[in-house]
């Protein structure tokens, strides 16, 4: 097991350093709180793609999703002392990401300015067809993904959050309950309703 503290104290580490750690998330955030920035790098590497996937499915805008992932990880950097070891680290970071994504969607709804640059990459490709021809299977898969993504966007926010966390991020009901801060029964009910709505939206597609 590596000694993170000694390595961090020698110099400010580069955030591009990617190394294998066997620490839990909670151990890493504890080390980061003590000033070990290499632990922060490891947390970033563990979570950036997971958060990207969650936020992109939520806001349906690739550039905006990446900005929000950066905002989430900046909050982790600046507000590290706010984390208390009473909840799982993943719960905490998903809560931050979810709140930022919801705030962004509300802001977007208020301004409602639509232009090509604000669309997700699938939409851009839809508007501007790729020069390279897609094979039949790839095109089918791409189309199916787009249909599901569009159906997710039709869900109300409180349904959308929980169904993404459950069926795409594969989190437990208990953890989702903590992230969205609603009772377990309500979470189960919302996920069930969201699935039924998705099934209804995708009925014609199938």
């Amino acid at each position: 097991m590596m000694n993170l503290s000694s390595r961090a104290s020698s110099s400010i580490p580069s955030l591009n350093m990617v190394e294998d750690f066997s620490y839990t998330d909670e151990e890493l955030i504890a080390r980061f709180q003590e000033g070990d920035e290499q632990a922060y790098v490891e947390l970033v590497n563990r979570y950036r793609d997971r958060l990207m996937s969650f936020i992109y499915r939520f806001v349906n805008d690739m550039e905006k999703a990446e900005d929000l992932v950066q905002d989430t990880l900046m909050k982790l950097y600046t507000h590290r002392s706010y984390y208390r070891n009473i909840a799982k680290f993943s719960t905490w970071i998903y809560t931050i990401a979810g709140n930022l994504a919801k705030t962004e969607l509300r802001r977007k709804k208020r301004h409602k300015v639509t232009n090509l640059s604000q669309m997700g990459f699938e939409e851009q490709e839809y508007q501007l067809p790729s020069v390279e021809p897609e094979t039949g299977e790839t095109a089918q898969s791409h189309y199916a993904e787009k249909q599901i993504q569009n159906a997710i966007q039709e869900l109300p926010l409180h349904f959308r959050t929980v169904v993404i966390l459950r069926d795409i991020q594969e989190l437990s009901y208990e953890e989702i309950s903590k992230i969205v801060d609603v009772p377990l029964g309500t979470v189960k009910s919302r996920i069930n309703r969201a699935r039924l709505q998705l099934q209804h939206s995708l009925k014609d597609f199938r």
Partner: protein
Amino acid sequence: MDRYQFEDLVSDYIENNISMSQRKQVEAYLEENPEAKQKVESVKQVMASMKSMPGVSTSAGFMNNLNKRIAAEKEASSVVKTARSFTGYTPLMASLSAVVVVAVIMLGFEFMPEGSSQATLSPTMAEQQLDDLPEMPAQTQDNMLAESEDDSTEYDSDVPVKSNFNDRIQLVGDKRP
């Protein structure tokens, strides 16, 4: 079981989170309603499709941008620290200075010579000064009270004092000289 009860249990049925009796009820309902059976299959497909959706990765420049933001954040926080200590007093230094000043003032009072100020007369010292006074005989004290011209008891009387203002007030039309 009706349609609404069935729909409430669809996910629990698929994920096997219901009791055996509820499962039997759902299965009986599915046998009677082929479209409900079709719905369960569709929901299963939706769940499987969502699970198999490709993961989305951050761009190649993600870490570089994050590095830049962190560097900017560090710089900003160091500027704030510099601004705080611009006059040469950080919050910690100011607090320590205040403590030292208060301590010096308190020590000054402690070592101030006796009698230099009334404020330094402690209760013990006051009692000692009273003891030093010559004792007055009790008889003398009674006499002093008796000889006093002002008798406070006459002001404390409950009987209202009737004043005659007839000689002092002259009403309009009063012919008195």
